[in-house]
């Protein structure tokens, strides 16, 4: 009986840890990941255009990625509303970037919806990453 309880407890703990666990990745792996669902090779110019594309928000103002990430990719940005510091996107200065698939996917989902009002396609994610990876 005790063993059963212990097993259950162990199982529960491992599930809890798994829920928050990161999925290690890298830029080459991410490109492979998104390429599977993309029609064209990734293009930094298209990515840049998306990064800078102005979109009307509910509050009547225009939004683009730089609204919170800032104009210089190798410098920190600041969240327009909360004031939270957003670490640089450039992998050359921020080694933490693009090392966790869960994190990359979470923020693509949230930020594409917040900025463009919809989720991004695999093609768009790959293009944006291509642009960011050059910095």
């Amino acid at each position: 009986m005790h063993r059963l309880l212990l097993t259950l407890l162990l199982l529960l703990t491992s599930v809890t840890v798994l829920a928050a666990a990161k999925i290690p990745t890298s830029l080459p792996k991410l490109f492979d990941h998104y390429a599977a669902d993309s029609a064209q090779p990734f293009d930094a110019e298209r990515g840049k255009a998306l990064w800078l594309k102005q979109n009307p928000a509910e509050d009547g103002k225009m939004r683009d990625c730089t609204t919170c990430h800032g104009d210089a990719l190798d410098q920190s940005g600041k969240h327009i509303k909360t004031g939270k510091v957003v670490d640089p996107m450039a992998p050359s200065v921020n080694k933490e970037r693009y090392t966790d698939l869960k994190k990359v996917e979470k923020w693509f989902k949230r930020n594409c919806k917040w900025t463009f009002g919809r989720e991004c396609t695999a093609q768009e994610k790959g293009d944006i990453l291509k642009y960011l990876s050059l910095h």
Partner: protein
Amino acid sequence: MNMVRMGSGLLLLMLVGVAGIASADDGFYSWLLTLDRKGEIAPLVNETYKEECGSCHFPYQPGLLPSGSWKKLLSPSALEDHFGENAELDEDVRLQLLAVLEKSAAETSYYKRSRKIMASLKDATPLRITEVPYIQRAHHEVPARLIKKNDKVKSLSYCDACHQKADKGIYDDDTVSIPGHGAWTW
């Protein structure tokens, strides 16, 4: 002398007994009788909560709101529009965080400030900590120029702007330092 020793022994026994009964249940009488009385608010221990919520804002302790509030805040649709931000979570993470919050929500806590929060709320389950009557009352005398009109604070929502030990769950007056103003004295 012997009588005194016996008396104190008996008293100790009674107290231990009472504490044992109290922890069995969470009602008012158990709170009244428990020895498990704590100041301030239970500090936050969950790393996932710190990472997922604290990456955007101060990780508010679960004991600052009742479970009814957390349940509303962490519904999938509420997270999609989290005070104007998209804070969507993967379902496994969402359920994990909800469990953490419900387990340590204000009504489950013996910590002083959680008790005061519950007493002031009655049955209300607000979405904002700043709407809790006790929290409003506690800041009532702090003028707007020190919070809202203070560029370095901006809103009552930024607990840790002034409460220097907020991350440890300590909100005592003595630990307050208002940016551009200094210590708070009544």
